[in-house]
């Protein structure tokens, strides 16, 4: 169990550095996104990855599940996918004369919901409800989902044909939304030379065990957020409500999400306190999908988030 290293504030070395490095060996040149994904998991949130097909979304999900010692299932969302295909069905066993529940892929610790915006809203909301409640109710029987339970949903950019964009209220269920983007030149070169990243992800060893994760999550929630830091988060939320670039500001729930994501970020840096830096680092991933730009495009633009950060002095 990696303890909190008594390291200098300015010299970051965190308890999960070796895990992040191992993931970085598989998903090349995406250290920041890996860190965001892990922070999202440690903060107990779900992750939405939005990007073009083929940039490594699935590989990332695979690698994380392997490294964290979690079991993993993948659902390819299509327009004819039904809620039961995710949650599971009860079937009648004639020999025993009873109904037996066949759990769906949602009963895994890591669920990769691939191309979630290809499914119909009804199917989407079945998954999203499961995410929110951490349980599913089938035929009057409530079944708990495993703990930890971590959904990584991927989504193609909404302008692609045949998609049902997630409504705002459901986007809010994802703690973070990240983009992977094309790898940079050197990383892409390495990728082309090595090849077969998916297989390498499958062979990764478990660096921590699933059972340790609740304890780590508890540690994360204990990371200290001092009064000035909370002032800062509040000032950012208020500024988002004043800012004319957005149709509306951040909700109180978004504020809580921001704070817990910042805690996880701080913990990954091996700190016992949240700094304004952590808030600034996670703000784009936490806030962009919760804000609507007045410019018409659904999501707030990255520049607007930068402007938002620059409009709030550090208290």
């Amino acid at each position, binding site marked *: 169990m990696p303890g909190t290293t008594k390291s*200098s*504030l*300015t010299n970051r070395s965190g308890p999960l550095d070796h895990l992040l490095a191992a993931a970085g060996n598989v998903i090349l040149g995406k250290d920041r996104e890996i860190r965001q994904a892990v922070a999202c998991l440690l903060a107990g949130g779900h992750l939405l990855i939005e990007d073009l097909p083929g940039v490594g979304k699935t590989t990332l999900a695979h690698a994380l599940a392997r490294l964290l010692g979690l079991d993993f299932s993948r659902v390819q969302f299509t327009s004819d996918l039904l809620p039961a295909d995710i949650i599971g069905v009860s079937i009648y066993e004639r020999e025993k004369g009873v109904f037996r529940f066949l759990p769906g892929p949602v009963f895994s610790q890591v669920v990769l919901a691939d191309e979630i915006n290809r499914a119909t809203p009804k199917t989407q909301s079945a998954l999203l409800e499961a995410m929110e409640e951490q349980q599913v109710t089938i035929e009057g029987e409530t079944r708990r989902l495993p703990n930890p339970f971590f959904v990584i949903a991927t989504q193609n950019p909404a302008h692609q044909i045949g998609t049902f964009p997630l409504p705002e209220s459901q986007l809010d269920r994802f703690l973070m939304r990240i983009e992977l983007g094309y790898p940079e030149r050197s990383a892409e070169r390495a990728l082309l030379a090595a090849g077969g990243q998916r297989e390498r992800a499958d062979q990764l060893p478990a660096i921590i065990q699933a059972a340790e994760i609740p304890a780590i999550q508890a540690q994360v929630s204990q990371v*200290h957020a*001092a009064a*000035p*830091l909370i002032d800062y988060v509040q000032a950012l939320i208020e500024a988002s409500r*004043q*800012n*004319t*670039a957005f149709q509306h500001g951040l909700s109180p729930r978004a504020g809580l999400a921001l704070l817990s994501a910042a805690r996880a970020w701080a913990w990954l840096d091996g700190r*016992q*306190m*949240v*700094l*304004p*830096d952590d808030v*600034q680092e996670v703000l784009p991933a936490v806030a962009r999908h919760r804000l609507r730009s007045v410019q018409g495009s659904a999501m707030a633009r*990255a*520049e607007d988030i*930068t*402007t938002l*950060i*620059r*409009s*709030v*002095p*550090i208290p």
Partner: protein
Amino acid sequence: MSTPASLSLDHRCTPWLFAAALATTAPHALHQPVWLTLLAGAIFTYAGWLWARNERLPGRWLLIVLVVLTCAGVMLEFRTLLGRDAGVAMLVLFMALKLLELRSQRDAMVLITLGYFLLLTHYFYSQSIPTGLWLILTMTLVTAALIRLNGGPASKPVATLRYAGLLTMQALPFMLVFYVLFPRISGPLWGLPQDAHKASSGLSEQMSPGSIADLALSSAIAFRVRFDGDIPPRDKLYWRGPVMESFDGRTWRPADSANQPPVIEALSKPITYESTIEANQQRWLLALDAPSPALKEFAIKSTLTVTTPQIINQRARFALSSVTDYRYNVDETEPVLRRNLLLPANLNPRSRELAESWRQASDNPMLTVNKALALFSGEAFTYTLQAPLLGENGIDDFLFQTRRGFCEHYAAAFVVLMRAAGVPARVVGGYQGGERNPVDGFLIIRQSDAHAWAEVWLAGQGWVRVDPTAVVSPSRLEGGIASALADGEPLPALLTVRSEWVRGLRYRWEAINNAWNQQVLGYNPERQRELFSRLGVANPDWKYLTSLLAAVIGVLTLAVAAWTFYHRPRSDPAQRLWRQALKRIARRQVSAAPWETPLALQRRVEIEHPELATAFTTVVEAYLAIRYSATPGDLRQLREAIAKLP
């Protein structure tokens, strides 16, 4: 954190910049040539269309061509690029053209600076209350654009405007102090453009048929008078302008005469009054007939016209005194009397014939005068603004055919008859009557009160005023021009309004304007001296005023600073020490943005100033530990770390 291209203009500012450009230029449309207004309007519309459609702005070459063309247009119109009108036209066009070039933050700053400058130019044309209010509002708008451009604290439009308004309000006390205390000098501070005081309409030095009737169409105020006692009766209110003695058959002009002072014999007590004359580009003061012999401050011509040495090219105030019962120039010189008998030869034979018959009937000039007046009252003469055109023998045509005319027709005809009958006579131009504003008690004399009358010289009585108009239309003297003319005459609507309510409103507005003129615009060196002597400082010189100004502004600034200091956000000791540290590193040209975190700053210092890095890192760690960690921090450690900063 990525940095956006910081120089490109934030598109959300653009509506603000358009509004500022429009508000600072629009009032110039009131006095600019129409084509300039249309051109500027077209450029505004084009720029707005480009912006609304999100089109590309025109290229550099098109802009250069436009600038050259507009300059050429201004040059053709005004024959210069300098001076008041041409200069303002250039500024307005450049403001409009700048909208086609709004690409960067810098362009927007140029536009805003131009906007602040354009604000001033409006005072060349008007210093009235509406102008002042409009410019205060416009200044607030330009300031709001400036705030928006710099990503000010508020981002909703109303909040931005409120913030700009607050800034303007905060500037007002300073403005007042400057207004009262800034040393006043007579005349402008610096050379105003040649054309800054353009001709304004008013009584002219010549009189021909129709010239006074033209003036009567204007309800503009010529001057205002405040009497120290009661206002004299209306039929005594003759305000004397130029006296015209030479006649060429059509036009009356003053004669060039050696200027010897008149001999005035006062028959009543002098009346004192203060007259505020609007700019009229003339020298005469329009004193009430006749100026008191005691009036020594101004030159009085032998024709009784009071003049100043300088042309009145801006509103000016004069203290005058007059006697309404008087005799003057009883011993008029022979050349003057002879001059006032001259008539152009061979013109107006019928009039001369008539006058000759009067002279033969009696040699008493008084009888001749009465015969002429009886002619006007007896025959069907009409007092009207719409006089028919007259031929070469104008007086004959008027007396025997048209018989329709305004005061200049009657005065001219009367004087011609008198001269032909051997009575020295001349035409006097000026104003008659006036309207008392019940709100402030000032007597208002408008251009429409312009009048012409005659005076004849009678042995033993000197020059005597005879007003033929009084005979033709007695109500002209009693009730003013509006009551003397028939309905349907083209008088300005302002004068013919019968509604009491509208009239009251107009009186009040004119009284407010008058107070503004007297108190605010009329705050000249004398007024300033008066104010200070009332406060117990006799004759303050400019050095005294300047130091007082500096002192008051200093105290005001200190008071504001003290207030801000008292209401500053309270900070905890760690934060105060952190600010000290920031000041220390600022000496090494490291400045922290307000949004920059201590760690980000530390990383920057590490790269940009490696020599500071170790010491500063210690400071940052100590500060963060105190401010953000769960355990209470050690202030002493932070203080020591700061002390070690180079």
